[in-house]
């Protein structure tokens, strides 16, 4: 699991690379919450374009990120999930809490 960020004019974009499972979740969550605490963004974009796998551990992570964003009066959404990640997002119904902007179309 790798993570990178870009901050521009109130928008924090967080890029995730690799496999987001229970093994990776805790470290990833810590990195994301540190970034959000530092930037206090109005908008947080989780760019899943580099994510090759995610299971329900990623759903728990999204719920936490959305709670942080709410406390900071900010918004959060997901972009570019691949097919596998999209299927997990859809099966969990998380879209009602964290919107999904665009599918990447990648397998």
């Amino acid at each position: 699991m790798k993570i990178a960020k870009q901050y521009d004019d109130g928008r924090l974009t967080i890029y995730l690379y690799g496999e987001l499972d229970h093994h990776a979740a805790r470290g990833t969550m810590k990195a994301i919450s540190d970034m959000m605490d530092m930037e206090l963004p109005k908008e947080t974009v989780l760019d899943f374009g580099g994510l090759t796998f995610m299971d329900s551990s990623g759903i728990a992570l999204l719920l936490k990120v959305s709670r942080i964003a709410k406390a900071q009066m900010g918004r959060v959404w997901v972009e570019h999930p691949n097919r596998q990640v999209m299927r997990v997002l859809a099966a969990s119904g998380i879209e009602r809490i964290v919107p999904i902007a665009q599918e990447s179309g990648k397998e």
Partner: protein
Amino acid sequence: MNVTNYIKLEFPSKSVNEGYARSAIAAFAAQLDPTLEELGDIRTAVSEAVTNAIVHAYPDDIGTIWLKARILEGDKLEIVVKDKGRGIADLKQAMEPLFTTGGEDRSGMGFTIMESFTDHLKVRSAPGKGTTVTMVRRIRRRRG
């Protein structure tokens, strides 16, 4: 006799083995020539079952997890994930969407995902004895 192919793996309940279990099942399933979507579903379902054994079955220590898979007639893949951990007292409640005893680190969506990503899910569990999750996924035969 018609001997089908199978694998039996055993590993300690360390979270680093979640990725190993996904890779192992994907490598075994490859002989059925699954689509990327079928392969993704299988890896996800196994990830959920193995993570449950790591997180819930053996919360305070390291125990053993068994992962078995075999090919059934009709291009079906059967997967069994077994632990000898703490077990589940109320299975019906445990399998409800959003139910979790794992606090905010968990989503309570594991069983729901296993159910929707396979054709058949069966869970047997006894408190103090352990849990066995059996899943079957049919791989659609493709032409040419």
